[in-house]
């Protein structure tokens, strides 16, 4: 199967045959720049859609413990990168309400990998996403958003604070820059490719 034909680069014409689609999740705490990154690398303005999620929750009322269904609406921002007429990468910025998107099976299943974005002023906001992908065995990289070029922590400090495996790349930069987002995604693909090798190459 050929994925890398040259017609139909970003913004180019697409054939009528349906392309294969893959997805990458862009996660992290509220306000760390998920939609910013999606918008910077997507060939289209980020699109927004939503889903109703229903989950069992245990509540307490006057007849004791009652299990009830809680339905919430979770929003999703996403963009796309057309690789060719045969392959499209969708970037899904996970909603800010982390407690809920973890339960969105269709969103979290079958991703190539994930990007966890972090803000050095509140790294703890990204703990949940890191725990989630580690526990699922989903490959991920970490991107640290240096707003306006401000970098007040070193990579080593961030790695230490996030208790990250040394093999997980950390990239720092201004997520409004397309090149920064691109390099974060390239780092993720490199992790995925390295996992294909019998002997780690990096």
């Amino acid at each position, binding site marked *: 199967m050929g994925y890398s034909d040259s017609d139909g680069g970003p913004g180019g014409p697409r054939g009528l045959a349906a*392309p294969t*689609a*893959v997805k990458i999740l862009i996660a992290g705490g509220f306000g760390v720049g998920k939609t910013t990154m999606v918008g910077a690398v997507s060939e289209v303005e980020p699109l927004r859609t939503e889903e109703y999620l229903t989950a069992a929750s245990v509540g307490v009322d006057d007849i004791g413990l009652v299990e009830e269904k809680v339905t919430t609406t979770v929003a*999703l921002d996403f963009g*796309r990168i057309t*690789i060719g007429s045969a392959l499209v990468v969708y970037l899904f910025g996970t909603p800010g309400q982390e407690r809920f998107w973890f339960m969105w099976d269709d969103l979290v299943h*079958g991703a190539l990998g994930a990007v966890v974005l972090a803000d050095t002023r509140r790294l703890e906001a990204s703990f949940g996403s890191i725990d989630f992908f580690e526990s699922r065995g989903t490959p991920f990289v970490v991107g640290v958003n240096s707003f306006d070029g401000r970098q007040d922590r070193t990579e080593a400090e961030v790695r230490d604070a996030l208790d990250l495996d040394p093999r997980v790349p950390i990239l720092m930069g201004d997520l409004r820059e397309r090149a920064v987002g691109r390099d974060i995604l390239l780092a993720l*693909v490199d992790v995925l490719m390295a996992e294909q090798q019998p002997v780690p190459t990096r």
Partner: protein
Amino acid sequence: MNHWSEERLDDDPEDSLVRPYTITRGRTLPERGDLTLITVVSTIDAEFGTANVRGLQPEHRMILEQCRIPAAVAEIAAGLNLPVAVAKILIGDLIALGRVAARPPLALAAGQKPDIRLLQAVRDGLLRL
């Protein structure tokens, strides 16, 4: 949106005052559980466009129009301004009618490794950004 008027094709979904599950005639679960956010949907026989739309709701016709260029379920839902679950029900209707085809994404179960050629293609594509 005026669902009682079959003639209006140009309504803006932003203006919809119809509750989503009215559009699906009360159905809340898609008949096909295999549609995902990135299942790619394409209109069959796009040359006919939205001809022969008797019995279809405006949202069905919008999907047929949008998917003349293949689009993912998430894009269709965004285009309709409807929740993903509602879009899936409507897409399922069109699959059952043979009006659209659905291409599932690459099956990547947990722990399964993606094809190296696919990764190389993604990498090459990113370098062109």
